[in-house]
């Protein structure tokens, strides 16, 4: 199950590693907006070229990204087939009962697949080049304006940071529970989907109990060390917007504008 955890942080000194996390997150939001606006062949070309540049500048192993896309191929196939066969069109290529194969449906299917694939690659690069703590400080900086509507920004950032740090621990825990269930005769590898699904259910209660035990221990440890909420806590290091970060935001904003115009 550890292998499924895509986008694990890989320390490095690439251009993307050196962009400050808040700028990287803001650029990521701009890229998502650009992907949503893409609907022409030129737009697709620009988006692919931009994604290739991002991957090259990240200096991270391309195999991992290819694997994450390859793992999604059945899902992409289902999306494409569903759109091709069920998209309502006035000019169907072939029609039978409620099934309508159309050119518009196929284009729509390709559109959706393309958008999801680009977002998976870009989000993979983002998490591979940004540490968990970096992501959290980035989120904290970006959601700071919410303070004006009384959202406890520091508290939210602390919760998200703890949540991300809990993920590997809980995956390990679930792996142990899974092995214990296999020893008791659970059939996780059964060919029947219903049997496989039913085998997952006895894992839920022990996983919740052990997770809450860990939560109880952590909260007790934090309180005993004098933690009384994130308010007023000083950050480890203050981020300053450097030239590289500004350039990344400008590049992503330009791409977004280009996709809107064409």
């Amino acid at each position: 199950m550890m292998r499924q955890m895509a986008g694990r942080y890989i320390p490095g000194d690439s251009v993307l590693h050196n962009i400050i996390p808040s700028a990287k997150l803001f650029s990521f939001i701009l890229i998502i907006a650009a992907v949503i606006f893409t609907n022409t062949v030129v737009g697709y070309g620009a988006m692919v070229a931009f994604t290739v540049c991002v991957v090259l500048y990240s200096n991270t192993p391309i195999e991992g990204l290819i694997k994450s896309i390859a793992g999604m191929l059945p899902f992409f196939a289902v999306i494409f087939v569903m759109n091709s066969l069920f998209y309502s069109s006035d000019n169907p290529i072939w029609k039978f009962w409620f099934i309508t194969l159309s050119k518009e449906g196929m284009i729509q299917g390709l559109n959706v697949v393309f958008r999801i694939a680009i977002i998976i690659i870009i989000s993979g690069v983002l998490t591979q080049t940004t540490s968990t703590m970096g992501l959290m400080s980035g989120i904290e900086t970006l959601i700071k304006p919410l303070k004006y509507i009384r959202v406890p920004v520091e508290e939210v950032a602390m919760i998200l940071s703890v949540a991300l740090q809990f993920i590997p621990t809980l995956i390990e825990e679930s792996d142990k529970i899974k092995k214990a269930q296999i020893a008791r005769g659970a059939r996780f590898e059964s060919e029947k989907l219903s049997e496989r699904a039913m085998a997952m259910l006895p894992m839920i209660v022990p996983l919740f109990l052990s997770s809450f035990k860990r939560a109880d221990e952590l909260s007790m440890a934090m309180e005993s060390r004098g933690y009384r909420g994130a308010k007023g806590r000083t950050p480890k290091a203050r981020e300053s917007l450097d030239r590289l970060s500004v350039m990344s935001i400008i590049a992503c904003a330009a791409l977004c504008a280009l996709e809107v115009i064409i």
Partner: protein
Amino acid sequence: MSEMTSVKKSIICAVCIALCYVIPLFFHGIQNAGSIFCPMHIPVFMCGLICGWSYGLLCGIAGPVISSALTGMPPIAYLPNMVTELVIYGLVAGLMMKLVHTKNTYLDLYISLVVAIVLGRIAAGIVRALIFTQGTYSMAMWVSGYVITSWPGTLIQFIFIPSIIMALMKGRLIPERYPKLQIEGRN
């Protein structure tokens, strides 16, 4: 449950957000398991019921967003709709636990759970019909997606959530809703 400190509530909320990522991982290999078994709903309900509406709301937003960013599931196209549904679940479950006091923990949990499930599904259907799939969404699609397809998930939620919460109370990992000493004292 009122005895819990804000630090403990924050950490439980963080664990529930992490579980929103971990529990659906078990089901990724099974076709269409997400919409049948609704594995991500369980931690959000738990968070709302145990920690309150504000934490439930945060879990409903952050859980699917983090899972989508790290695994691509749910896909970005379904994310806004799913976030809306889960936000309502967390929010309503928390509010109902604050409002309903029948002196029976199981009854409080079931009432809160039923109201949250019904309102969450109705809200998700309305938002889908009015915003995300405007013009192409029908009542039949809502019944098929949110009632028929997901009935095993709803059944799992009814069986597991109150039982897990009661087990957590018995294990003293969360405070009891109606501590025995307090009731005896009143009598």
